[in-house]
């Protein structure tokens, strides 16, 4: 907790130069000083403000998890494995073409399509593969564009930069597809509305992505360039354990790398993250272990529930119950991430009461580290 005003200097000292930056993009695109470029946060000039929104919204500066939870759900932060939720289920697009193009069940693509088609939102802020396969932030305004952005390449993308660039006079209603750290940054923005940039009240739907870790675009992209003919690659995939592979698919076939080799490009900051299932999204989406072509969906808020209902009603999305072993495994994995991360953090600071950026109720910490 701090009462001292903090701005870009502290952001650089405490987060970026300290190796905590997740490249979420919350600090860039909103001012002329901080920009994201090829996997780095770059300071173009010195801002002269002592206090800045860049520091305030960063998900790796102090986060009062309880305050965030209260604002998002009206409930305290409990530290439950999957966070606050209304429903957990399986879902997939009813359109085979969409499923083929997208990751797993194509649920994210479908939800966005429905939201656009039904006029719930006017645009979706997502990550998109650029020509050289580095993911870049993108604002999609049609279902075709949304489909075009489907798929993942597992590299961090500063998607929030595109959110920040929406002009403050814009009245467009927005959807956002975001990783857990990005959802946390957005939750901070909802707690303290941003000034001189996008009206955060226009963000109507946040679709969260399950995330264990992300790869550094800086290092991993170089690896890809050196080992693949990138323009030929159609999509990437990390199949579920025990495959231990990173796959790249071209028209002619598949090239795989041992996951161990790829893991060296995991951003070190991911080891300090407690959130596997994007606990502060409206609806969170991930894969289903052992069941190809389906997504696990966690519905958390009214907005999440509404878009799921509309998707079902439109016939574009089919849902099913999530088998209990899958749910159990999911909770296990999520809990494991929390515990590992807390141990890392406490190990780094030497104390359970100094958790770097995390403001957790003491009871939660003790329970998780018991």
């Amino acid at each position, binding site marked *: 907790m701090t009462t001292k005003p903090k701005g870009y200097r502290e952001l650089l000292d405490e987060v970026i130069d300290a190796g905590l930056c997740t490249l979420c993009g919350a600090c860039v695109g*909103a*001012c*002329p*000083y901080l920009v994201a470029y090829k996997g*780095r946060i*770059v300071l*173009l000039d010195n801002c*002269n403000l002592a206090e800045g929104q*860049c520091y305030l919204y960063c998900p790796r500066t102090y986060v009062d998890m309880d305050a965030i939870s209260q604002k998002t759900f009206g409930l305290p932060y409990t530290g439950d494995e999957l966070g606050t939720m209304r429903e957990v289920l399986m879902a997939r697009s009813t359109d085979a073409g969409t499923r083929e193009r997208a990751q797993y069940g194509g649920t994210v693509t479908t939800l966005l399509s429905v939201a656009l088609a039904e006029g719930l939102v006017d645009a979706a802020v997502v990550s998109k593969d650029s020509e050289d396969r580095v993911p870049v932030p993108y604002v999609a305004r049609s279902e075709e564009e949304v489909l075009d952005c489907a798929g993942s390449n597992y590299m961090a993308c500063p998607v929030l930069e595109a959110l920040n660039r929406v002009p403050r006079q814009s009245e467009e209603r927005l959807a956002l597809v975001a990783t857990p750290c990005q959802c946390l940054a957005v939750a901070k923005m909802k707690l303290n509305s941003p000034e001189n940039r996008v009206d955060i009240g226009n963000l109507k739907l946040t679709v969260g992505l399950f995330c264990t870790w992300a790869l550094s675009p800086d290092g991993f992209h170089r690896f890809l360039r050196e080992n693949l003919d990138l323009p030929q690659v159609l999509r990437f995939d990390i199949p579920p354990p025990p495959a231990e592979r990173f796959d790249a698919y071209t028209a002619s076939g598949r090239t795989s790398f041992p996951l161990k080799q790829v893991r060296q490009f995991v951003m070190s900051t991911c080891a300090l993250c407690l959130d596997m299932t994007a606990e502060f999204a409206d609806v969170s989406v991930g894969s289903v272990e052992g069941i190809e072509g389906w997504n696990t969906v966690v519905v958390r808020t009214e907005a999440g529930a509404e878009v799921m209902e509309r998707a079902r009603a439109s016939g574009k999305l089919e849902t099913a119950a999530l088998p209990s072993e899958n749910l159990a495994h999911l909770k296990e994995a999520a809990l494991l991430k929390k515990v590992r991360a807390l141990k890392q953090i406490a190990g780094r600071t030497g104390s359970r009461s100094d958790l770097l950026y995390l403001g957790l109720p003491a009871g939660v910490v003790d329970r998780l580290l018991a």
Partner: protein
Amino acid sequence: MANIDIDAPGTRQLFIGNEAIARGALEAGVGFAAAYPGTPSSEILDSLASVADRAGIYAQWSVNEKVALEAAAGASFAGIRAMASMKQNGVNVVSDFLVNLVMTGSGTGGLVLVGCDDPSAISSSNEQDTRPIAKWFDIPLLEPGSFQECKDMTKWLFDLSEELGTICMLRSVTRIAHARGVVKLGELPKAQRRAFFDQVHDARSVMPTRFMPVPSSLRHALAHVKLQNAREKFESSPFNWYVGPDRADLLIITGGSCWLYSLEAVRALGLEDRVGILKLGTLWPLPEKLVEGHLGRSQRVLVVEEIDPFLERSVMEVAAALPPDSPRPVFYGKRSGHINAYGELNPDAVGKATAAVLSLEYQTRDVEYGKKANELAGANVPQRMMTFCPGCAHRATFWAIKNALKLDGRQGIVTGDIGCYSMALGPAGFFQVRTMHCMGGGIGVANGLGKLAQFGFDQPVLAVCGDSTFFHAAIPALINGVYNEANFILVVLDNSATAMTGFQPHPGTGVTATGQETGAVSIEAICRALGVDVAVCDPFDLAGTTSTVLEMMADGGRARVVIMRRECELVRSHREKTKPYTVRVDPDICVGETCGCARLCTRVFRCPGLIWDEEAGKARIDEVICTGCGVCADICPQGAITKEAT
């Protein structure tokens, strides 16, 4: 500019020192003048070029000072009176040719070198006194103490040079060169000589009429003979005089600009009957008998000069050689600390020194008023730093370079050079430039940095130079970079002008000094002929320029060139007299000091056309200063600055 070729002998005209020098050359019958622009010398060639056609003479802007002097010498070798003028750095550039020229002789024409120094480096990279080169190289040297002497000395030096067959030098400083005073005109010559390079063996002279510095001992001895002849003439020169009492409490020995300062200081102190002034115009070789004669007037001698203790040391050499029983005065000046050994002087400095030597008070101003003035002015007078003009392409270029270097992230280095863009050392160019020395120095240094990869060096290197600088000095260094495979990017700032010195033409502009159209030399053609990759950017296209520079830095390994091409705004607006855009800040969109802007346009970009309205907390356009280039509209993070085509 005044008309220096007015045919009105005996009338008085208001000339700046440089115009008076040019007039003196005309009255001497100069036929050939060459120079490279350099403050404070540029107006000499500027004014000669403006009258060249009707005066029947030839005036040339040369590619650099070395060629200018060599060309002038060539004319003198063929019997035509010639002159080369330059600033202090130019004298450095010509030094190798100059020392050899003293040994070869300058022929039958008459050759004058004018060197204009810039004490306090008001418009220079360095401060330097060029007078010692006369002593070093054995060159007769004169320095004018008034505007009349600028004319009269220049004229006389041609005669001296022709008679002795050696180059003669006139040294001036900014406060004479650029100050304006009354000059009484002399007659202009009626006809020019015929040029002819005489190759016939002259039986009277030891060597045939060829210009070579060998055999060197003989040549050196001959140079000393010429100097001795000059000294004899200087002993009775009308350019040296004494004012004051026969016996003085203090003898001031001075020359050049300091003559008038000393005169005023003595007047202000009311010491005309106690302090004498020996004003010397012939500085090297020193007329020793003359000086010896005056040294006896006082027990105290104060030597006043700009910049180095050149005269002081020469006079002290004379004093050291006085017979043992002669009275030896006490010397004051730079050695004693009474006069600064750096920076320019003024009447106050001389007044303070004089008063100190005589243990008097020096006060030119009412003490009470002085206190009040310091208080009121001290509190209310903010600094006024130099910067790029509004609309200057360099501001946009360095903005793009700054962003490209930051995005690249490898701590790239910019090596700098001489021109308006030298200001990129400071806030005007966002503190981008890291080294600055002389013409062509930037790309020279880049050649070194560009070969350090084997020592683990991985920082990108950008060398900046102007278009005129490119022709002056950068080409050999670029060839070196290609031949030795150095890794750097030469950024040529092509604003189609030699801007800082007054918009003189150069080989790239396609116009000569006298306004004739000629083939323009293409910078990119030269680069391509060297096999170098060349990109051409418009600096006003900030995004395009930034990404071109970024790409070039990423694609390293060899010397490459990017030309930033956009005309100097002062040249454009003088010709077109219109503004391309009407630029406005929308106060409803401007967020000023708050998070999301933090005054980027006024605090960081700093174009003088953008001002800060403290009360409203918004930026604003100063419509008198703004030239309507519209670049600021592209940097405003909120889109508050708009540009409308006019």
